[in-house]
Every structure is written in C-alpha cells, then in structure tokens.
C-alpha cells in the first residue's frame, strides 16, 4: 500500500505535469487491439459478438439480461432509430404476419435501405457540423447552404464510407479533380458562426471561426477538447499550446474576403439539382422525337408570320388590345432576348412583349420565358409573367405564350404547358396602345427604333394570333408520350430554383503565417509555427518535401489505421444513437477528463470491425440492432435499481425521450399530414406569430429576414428541413432540446421542462395534428368510439389498448360530452400525443 505522501506526490504529478508521459498512457491514445471474445454461460442468448461482451459483464455480476421486447416495441424501436419515423399499422401487421425465421433481419434491412434512413442519420451529423440556415451572432443572416444538408442525407443513404465521407467534408476542395459535390461537402468547415454587420473586430472573429473549426474537428473526429489549449497547454491531455497552433495553421489558409459589413470566405456558384435536371432533360429529349410534329400546323386566327428579325414601322398595325397568342421556334444559348415586342417601358410606351430573360429585370430568371402586358402605356398597370423552364440550353424548342385577356397568361415549351408560371399583378382586360411598331427578335429602349435585347440564335416561324390557342403546338395530347413529357416538365419545374452562392472551403496559394496567440489573444502574437500534428500522434510521413501539411493531409491522417481515436469515436456515437449513451459517455471527450469506457474491449472490437469493413456505417448499425442486447425489453427492473442504477451494464434496453424532430415528425405521421419529400430549400413550419417582428430581425441591412409560414405541403415537411435560425430556433424544436447549432454538439441534452408540456399540448402545430388524426380515423372508415379507440392506439402507439385504457378513453369521452365540451375526440388524440410512451422510444 502506498504511503499517503507517495499518493500525494502521485496526484500532484498527474495534475501538475500534463503533457508528460503520464497522460500519454491514457487508454484512448493506445492502439486499437483485437480483443479476445469473452466466453459466456448462456450461449443461447447470444446473437452476435456484441452480446458476448455485454453478457460476460452481466454474468460476472450475476445479473440476468431482460427478456426480448414485445414485437410492437421492437418494430417501433427499429423504425424510430433507423428512419426517425414511427411505423404505420400496416408495417406492424406485415411483420407480425411474417413467420420466416429471418423476418427481423428483413425488416432491419428494409429500414436501413429506406431513404428516410439518411434523413435520420443526417440529423445527428448536422448537430456535429453545426449546420444552420443563418450566420449566427447579432446579424444572423440567411446563408444558403442547404445543398450541404442534402449532400449529407445522400451520403448516408448511399452509405458513403466514413473515411470518404469525412475527407470530402474536411478537404473536398483539395481533392484532385474535385467534383462539384465534393466542394459542396467542404461547406462543413464554413458553418462556423460568422459575425457580420456592426462589428469592428473582424480579425478577431475570423480567428474565432478557426478556433471553432478546431473545436469541431476535435469533437467530431478525435474526441478531444482541443480548444482547451487555445490559451495555454492543455491541462489534462498531452497537447501543448504550440501544438494547438500547429493544428490551427492547418485550418488557417482559407481566404477571408470582403470589406465593411460583407466579410466572408470563399463561395461557389451552385445550380441545385443539376444532375437530376440533366437526367430528366435527357428523358424528355428521348420523348421529343416521339411526340410527333410540334408547331408545324398553322391554326385559326393567325394574323402574320415572320422568319427573321423585323421592325414593323406602322405602329397602328398589330396594335392588339385583347387576347392573343404567340408561337415561335427558337434555338439559343443567350440569357436574354425578345421574341415579339410592342413595349418600351422606359419611354412609357407599354403594350405587350414576349421573350426570354425578362429584358434583364431583377425578378426575371435568365434563360426562361417571360411576358408583360399593360393596360396603360405611361404607367405599368397589368401583369408580369415568368416561366419556370429553361429554354436557352442551345437546343431547338417550340415556345408559345397564350394571353387570355382578364384571365391568364400561359407558357408552353415544346407543346407542353409550363406548370408553374409565376404571375405578378392582375391580368388586364385590355391592352394599351403603344406608339412603338411591332418588333420581332428585338426590343425597345427609349427609342423609336428597336435596338436592344436582340434575340441571339435561331428564331423562325414567329406567329401572331389574335385569339387564345388551346393547344398552341398542335400536339396530340392524348399520346402517352405527351402525357409522360408533361409529367417530366412538372418534375423539372419542381426542381427549378435560383443558383446559389454556397460558402465552401478553398486554400490560399500562399499560406498565412500562423503565430502562437499568447494567452489566446489574437493580437498578442508569439512564435511562428508551421502546420503539424501533436507529438502524441504518429508523425505524418506522406507529405512531399517542399510543402506544408494541409487539410487534405490531415483528413487522410485521421483515417490512418494507426490513429487510435477516429474509429473509436464514431462507433461510440453510433452506439450512443441506439442506447442513448455511448460506451464512453462523454462522446466528445475521450481525453483524461472524459469518462472511461464501460466496455473497453467491446469498443475496440467494434472499432476494428468498423475499420475492417471499410468504414461501413450501415454495417455497424445492422450489427447493433441485430444484437440480443438491443432487442431486450426496456421495462424498469427492481433488481437493477441498486445493482446498476445508470443502466451501464445494459441488462435492459434504455427508454429514451425522443429528439425534438422525431416528436414533431411522429405527430405528422400519425395525423397523415407528413410530406415525405426529401431535401430542398429549408421550410417555415407554423410558429407563434410575432417572433421576428422586431426591428433588427427583419430589416434590410440586418438579418433581412421575415418568417413567412410555409403554406401547402411544405408546412408538413420533416423537421430537419425547418429553417434553422440560430438566434431564434423554431419553438417546437428548441423546447425539446434541439440545439441551436451555434457550436458543434456531439450529444444533445435531454431535459424535461414545463415548457415542453405547454408546447406539446398547445402549440398550434400539435393541435392541428390532433384534429387531422381525428379526420384520418373518419376517412379510414372507423366509426363508433370503440373501433376508433383501437385504431388510434394502433396508429399512435403501434399496439392495441388494454382493457383499462379502453375504459379510461371511454370515460374521458363521456365526461367531455357530459360537460358539453366540443371536440372531445381531438382532445383525446391530443392527450395520446403527450403520453410518455409517445414521447419516448421504449
């Protein structure tokens, strides 16, 4: 036994001498070693090696594992864990009916293959990536970076190996021949908050952005609190302040551009869905040849036809004042060009104009059709119409515009109507007279002679009709090809969005000099340091001589098989996803101040399996959910209360309060409101009015933002698509502990506050869902309280009510009716959506 003095010296050494050999012996810095599978008595219980590790510990403590959970609990657990959505009653019915021995595995495989798997997994990753739709700090402006979010979802669904997944995010821009998508992935390290607006301390905030990169990298991949070494040597882990700034130097070469209020890093112009659009376009092109003749026939009401640029000098001619149609064959790559114009707005000579690109007007999309009509020549009184289809792709197109006076403006491309023409203003009943003569293939600008917005490319068969054409291209609309062609057009129009400027990473050609910041003060510069890794880690030997270590070298080093941390940290987080806590409970801190693993050998076994599988995350998920450990019941056991109060030994499955997104999404699923569309711009679900009305939140020059509640299906999208406003997160999300994502979060808090009860009972969104659920019951043909009660339990809780529950439901309904209260059924569904069983994954 040690003498007290020796103990004291020992303790002092541990405290006073960080960075010395003692801390290097820490478990997480040791190589991952293949453990021997422990032997267990109860072999029959074991489903896979995970169970051997878990059971061996339980047997050593003479604790029995719990029985397998009931079927409905298992299906619910799997469904929520793997897709983030509760199961529909039919899924449960199918599972119960499947008597095959591998029924469970089939369900697992189906859920892992579901496109909603990627959505659920992305939710965790976006917390680490501190992904949000606003810049944070006081200005909190919109940043259009949702394509990064979609990249993450896709990467999970495609099961992109974790090494590739990580390297593309840390250094996608530096990969040889980097693709657009790899550059989008590099937005990961542009999610740090960015101060904008009235801030005189720009360099300080640039530096804070890099500190955030290190903190995030440390938590996400290394499980280390690197940030502790910003001001001094790390107090607990073997990382000196100098080493911290060597890491800092790796991330310090991103250009910082702009001046005044508009400071920012590199950006990339990104056309959303360009791949999907190209695919749909190709399908359309194939169909086009089968559509039959397009626009050959002349139709009744034709006034005139032109084959080239023309200026009709007589202004009285073609001075139409009511309905009209124009068709033309075009082929162009230009963004702007008029097809027919009798419109000179600058000179106050308005009547009608049709062409491409809206004469460069800010509201018009370049390369898409537009038309303007005014009933007053001097002042605009009429309608602006903008098409959604790109027509300047250099391919021949038949285009048509149909103006139905007082009613509508429609566009047709290759005979198919544009399904989402954007209309601004009222369609006039009459058209003004313009003193400008009709111009074909050219437009006006304050001059009697048309000489601007000239149509570049081929323009022919320009036909002017003085009536509404129903089928301007003379297309046989009953042909299946035409129907399919129209469907593709609708798809294409859904994918039509403006180009975005996405913040991405880039590397300065000449690296910035990095200094140690003495006491963390960015103004107090000490010694110059070169990029490098802390000594505790292996030296990097693959960097060619003559250049410094860069982000790509660093990202690749993370996945060096000798790196002891990366694999352990990720499998631990996957474990945490399923069991609520990791084998190491401090998911972001594997250092000496973090907790030690509850099952160190299991952690290593999983880490090794992960690396050997080629960093295959779906494989780890499958392994975990197929274990007997995972399939245990979650019921509290009296015998465990003392033996294992925190359930670290896992003799039962832990019950876990669902994350905020799953609580809202579940309400959308059971009420039948959920819109399952994946990806796209963020949406604005209903929230209490007045949250952003204050000046400073919605005026130009500050955050330039107003929350406009989404209408239509976008109101019911999954919660991960909610516009993530860092300084004012949607109240339903924040009430249930969704992080604001101002910084990297590896493990969410789970709190239980009265605000949650107020939200779940009273937020308009939940009331709406409770009402919709009652409608769903009616629609699905359930009548009578008793049948409805069974159905609503199956829908909400995946099980039948027991006798007592049924009696209580009936009593509640009767009480409500006796009290002459209205809406007794939605009062009941609202309660079901607040049950602990509903809020919890059991």
């Amino acid at each position, binding site marked *: 036994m040690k003498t007290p003095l020796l103990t004291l010296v020992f303790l002092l050494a541990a405290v006073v001498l960080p960075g010395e050999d003692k801390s290097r012996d820490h478990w997480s810095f040791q190589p991952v070693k293949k453990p021997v599978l422990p032997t267990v008595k109860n072999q029959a219980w074991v489903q896979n090696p995970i169970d051997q590790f878990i059971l061996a510990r339980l047997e050593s403590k003479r604790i029995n594992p719990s029985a397998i959970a009931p079927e409905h609990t298992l299906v619910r657990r799997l469904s929520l864990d793997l897709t983030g959505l509760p199961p529909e009653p039919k899924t449960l019915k199918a599972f119960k009916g499947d008597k095959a021995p591998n029924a469970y595995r089939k369900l697992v495989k189906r859920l892992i293959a579901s496109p909603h798997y990627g959505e659920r997994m992305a939710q965790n990753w976006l917390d680490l990536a501190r992904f949000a739709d606003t810049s944070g700090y006081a200005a909190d402006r919109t940043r259009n970076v949702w394509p990064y979010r979609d990249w993450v979802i896709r990467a999970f669904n495609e099961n992109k190996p974790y090494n590739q997944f990580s390297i593309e995010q840390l250094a996608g821009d530096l990969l040889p021949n980097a693709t657009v998508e790899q550059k989008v992935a590099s937005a990961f390290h542009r999610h740090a908050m960015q101060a904008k607006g009235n801030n005189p301390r720009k360099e300080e905030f640039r530096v804070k952005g890099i500190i955030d990169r290190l903190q995030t990298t440390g938590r996400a991949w290394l499980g280390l609190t690197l940030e502790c070494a910003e001001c001094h040597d790390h107090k607990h882990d073997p990382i000196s302040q100098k080493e911290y700034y060597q890491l800092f130097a790796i991330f310090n070469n991103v250009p910082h551009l702009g001046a005044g209020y508009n400071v920012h890093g590199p950006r990339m112009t990104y056309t959303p869905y360009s791949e999907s659009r190209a695919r749909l376009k190709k399908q359309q092109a194939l169909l086009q040849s089968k559509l039959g003749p397009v626009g050959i026939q002349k139709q009744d009401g034709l006034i005139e036809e032109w084959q080239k640029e023309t200026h009709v000098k007589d202004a009285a001619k073609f001075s139409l004042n009511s309905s009209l149609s124009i068709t033309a064959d075009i082929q162009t790559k230009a963004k702007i060009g008029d097809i027919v114009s009798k419109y000179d707005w600058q000179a106050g000579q308005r009547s009608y104009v049709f062409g491409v690109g809206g004469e460069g007007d800010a509201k018009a999309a370049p390369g898409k059709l537009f038309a303007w009509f005014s009933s007053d020549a001097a002042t605009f009184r009429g309608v602006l119409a903008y098409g959604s289809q790109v027509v300047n792709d250099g391919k021949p197109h038949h285009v048509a515009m149909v103006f139905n006076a007082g009613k509508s403006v429609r566009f047709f491309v290759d005979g198919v109507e544009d399904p989402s023409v954007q209309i601004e203003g009222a369609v006039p009943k009459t058209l003004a007279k313009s003193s400008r003569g009709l111009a074909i293939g050219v437009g006006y600008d304050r001059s009697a002679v048309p000489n601007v917005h000239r149509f570049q490319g081929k323009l022919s068969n320009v036909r002017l009709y003085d009536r509404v054409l129903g089928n301007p291209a003379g297309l046989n609309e009953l042909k299946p090809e035409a129907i399919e062609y129209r469907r593709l057009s609708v798809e294409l129009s859904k994918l039509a969005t403006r180009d975005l400027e996405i913040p991405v990473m880039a590397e300065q050609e000449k690296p910035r000099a990095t200094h140690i910041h003495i006491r963390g003060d960015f103004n107090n510069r000490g010694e110059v340091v070169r990029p490098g890794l802390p000594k505790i880690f292996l030296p990097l030997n693959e960097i060619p001589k003559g250049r410094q270590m860069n982000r790509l070298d660093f990202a690749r080093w993370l996945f060096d098989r000798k790196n002891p941390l990366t694999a352990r940290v990720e499998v631990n987080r996957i474990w945490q996803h399923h069991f609520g806590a990791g084998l190491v409970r401090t998911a972001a801190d594997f250092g000496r101040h973090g907790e030690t693993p509850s099952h160190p050998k299991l952690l290593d076994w999983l880490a090794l399996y992960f690396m050997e599988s080629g960093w295959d995350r779906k494989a780890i998920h499958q392994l975990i959910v197929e274990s007997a450990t995972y399939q245990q019941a979650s019921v509290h056991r009296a015998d465990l209360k003392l033996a294992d109060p925190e359930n670290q030994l896992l003799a039962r499955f832990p*019950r876990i309060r669902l994350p905020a997104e799953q609580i809202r999404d579940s309400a959308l699923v059971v009420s039948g409101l959920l819109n399952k569309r994946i990806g796209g711009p963020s949406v604005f679900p209903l929230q209490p009015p007045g949250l952003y*009305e204050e000046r*400073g939140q919605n005026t130009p020059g500050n955050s330039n933002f107003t929350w406009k509640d989404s209408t239509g299906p976008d109101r019911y999208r999954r919660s991960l698509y909610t516009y993530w406003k860092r300084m004012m997160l949607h109240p339903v999300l924040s009430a249930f502990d969704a992080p604001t994502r*101002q910084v990297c979060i590896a493990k969410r808090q789970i709190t239980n506050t*009265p605000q*949650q009860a107020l939200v779940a009972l009273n937020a308009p969104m939940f009331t709406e869902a409770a009402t919709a659920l009652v409608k769903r019951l009616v629609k699905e043909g359930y009548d009578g309280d008793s049948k409805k009660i069974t159905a609503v339990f199956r829908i909400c809780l995946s099980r039948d009510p027991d006798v007592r529950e049924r009696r209580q439901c009936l009593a509640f309904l009767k009480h409500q009716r006796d009290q002459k209260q209205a809406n007794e059924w*939605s009062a009941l569904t609202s309660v079901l959506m607040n049950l602990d069983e509903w809020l919890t994954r059991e």
Partner: protein
Amino acid sequence: MTRRDMLQRTSLGFGSVALTSMLHAENPLAARRSHFRPRAKRVIFLFMKGGPAHMDTFEYKPLLQRDHGKPLPFAKPKVTFAATGNLLASPWKFKKYGQCGHQVSELFPNVARHVDDICFLHGVHGTNPAHGGALLKLHTGADNFVRPSMGAWVSYGLGTENANLPAFVTICPTLAHGGVNNWGSAFLPAHYAGTPIGNASIKAKDAKVHHIKNPKWTSSQQRAQLDFLKKLNHDNLGGVPNPILESRINSFELAFRMQTAMPEIQDIRGETGATRKLYGLDNAVTEDFGRQCLMARRFAERGVRFVQVSHSDSKVQWDQHGNLRKGHTEKASEVDKPIAGLLHDLKVRGLLDDTLVVWSGEFGRTPTVQGSGMDGRDHNPWGFTMWMAGGGVKDGFRFGATDDYGFYAERDKMHIHDVHATILHLLGIDHEQLTYRYSGRDFRLTDVFGNVAKEILT
C-alpha cells in the same frame, strides 16, 4: 369552476405525499441553499437597451460642461464604433438630491428622489463597442462564445422559491443583438433558461408566455386532459418506479399550474388606483414600461429569482448617435416614473431589503460629439454608469468614477465580470464556486475573472 376551485383541486389532485416529495427530488428548479448568507434573494434587472449616456443622466461632469466644443485632451480608443469630434456638454441641468447630495440630471426627476436608496457605480466598463457584443457581454459575460446568461446561472445556483413559476423570467426582451442568447441557458440544462414573456415589439399588456393557452380547449377541458393523461401514464408505470416518467408527470402539472399562475400575475386588475398611478399606468407615455415594472414586482413577490425588464421596443431605444436631446428626453420620460414607482413600491412592501434592483444599459456614450448637428454621442464601453438598489448594497452611495470628461473608467473600476461577481455575491453565491462541467472543463459566469466590489456591500 372558479380559479380558487381550480387551485384547490390541482393541489388535491396532485397532493399525494410521494409525488410532492418527488417534485423536489426530481425538480431541478427546487430551491437550493446558497454558499453563504445571501443579502438579496432575488434580482430585478432593468435593462435600458441602446446605451444611455452616463454624463447626461447620473454622473455629473463639471469639466465637460466647462470645456464644451474643445478637443478631448487625451487619446480616444484605437477601435471605436464610429468617429467622434470634440467634447459635447450635457444639454441637461444637474441638481443635488437627497441627503447624500448626489447630482442627477433633469432627465430623471423621479428616480432622483430615490438617490438615498441607490448605489451608483460610475466606474463600470466593458469590452465591446457594438450593441450585439455588448449585450452578450452584459448578459452572459462573453461576447464571442455561446455562454449561459446571468439569470440562467442564478436559477442554476438557487432554483426557484415558487413551485408554480420558473426561476427566471424576462419581460418583453429584445430579439435583436444576441436575442435568445441573452436569456438562454447555453450548455446549462434548459430548465435554467429564462422564460420570455412577450418580446420587445409587443406591448406589455399583450405579452404572454408562448403556448400558455390553447384557444381550442377551455381550462376545465385542459384539466380533464391532464387527469386523463396522468391516468394513462400511471397505468404504464407497471409497478416499478420510473423516475423519468414521474418527473414528466410533474412537468405537466407544473405547466398546468403555470397556466393558472402566469395570467394571474399578469392580471393587474387587483392593484389599487394609487399603485397603478405610482407606476405611471395612467399615462400613455409611461403606461407600457410601468406595466413591465409592476409585473416585475408581482413576479418578485411571488418568489421568482431573476426578473429582467427590458426597455426596448422595435427600435434600439437609447442609441442616440444623433437627436440626443429629443431621443434621451423621450426615453427617460418613458422609464423615469415607472422606475421610481417600482423603488417606492418595493420599499413600502418591505421587498427592497432582499431584492436587488439593477439598472444598466449595455454601455454608456461618449462625451465627444458624433455627427455634425452637435446632438449625438457614440457607444462607450470604456466607462459608464450602472446603479443598484436594495438587497445588500450601500444606499446613498457612489462608487468609482470616470475621468474628468466621462470617457474612461478611472477610479474604482468595475468590469462587467466584477459586476457579475458582485451580483452573485449579494445572492449568497461565490462566483468561483458556481461552476458547471461542460466539454471537460468547469465553466463560470465570470470565466477566469471577476472581483467582488466589497466596498459597496452593507
């Protein structure tokens, strides 16, 4: 059913001994013992958004009056928010008040009558010259990281004295310049975050806690829902106690009690005409802020630990880069009477003894002029005035000073961290002991700084 019936029924329906004791065991907001004997049990923080000019309100500067139009005889800070010119004398006259003879400008004639209850801190200074950073510094102690707010630390440290109410409420807070972070809990558990009542762009009379009511259901229907919910939840306990489920049941009950308690506090119909007049509710200019102050008293007397009242509407209230005369006159006239009313009311009710009232902007303003109109002042975090009254601070006292003109804090300086340390001290908390382990480190409101200003303690 009357409110009284409801309350009774609530307490009976929930009155089983087991559950009541559980409330304390499981309730993270249960009242906790302080580190040492507290001098104040609660804080009312009157926040003047935009930065009132100290040399125009509570710190008289004779040399500034004398040297109007002359250049500042020493250097201005390297980084300023905007450029300023020569010295600008205060357009307002100062007068001595009370036994202590403290000079107050004519902007605050009513508060001036309470100088003998007030402890002026003239040597306060911060770090950030922009609103966003300065607000965050004042409310959270950090302007470049996300940290828990002062009120959240207090509720973490002390819990609530009233089981029907949250420990930290913020009345009509501003959503700009840090917004929710100014009352957020950051890495502290969410229980400790401030509960906002309305926001700065909503009139105080319309301010409500979000989702406190459901228009679709009556109170008794909601009570019936909760009873039903409790029954179903209990059935699921399955015989073995499940503390998480128990605490969920408690949360729902607390929510329901809040549904009753909150509107009751906000319903000021029971206040006498004299009290309403005291707070200026009879006057359109003072009505809005007066109502906020009155609500603050009502929260304070019901045991809420930390009540913040923000003087801010849809503009950056006290931010007179120009139009100083008009702007400061207007702003002061909105708050002067209500603040004086609050001090008086707390005093006569005996609440001022253990309630600490704090008055402050996020910074002060420069003695040098901004703009060509000789009618504006820029932001000044380098020296400004804050004042405290009540629980544990010396009355009729002044501590610290800025230089002769009011630019820099000079004597007995108190950084924002020192202010935080002192407020915690008055509440019986050692600011170095109130820590929370996050990301491998123990965090404090005062980071690694903060000295208690012992000189101002009684």
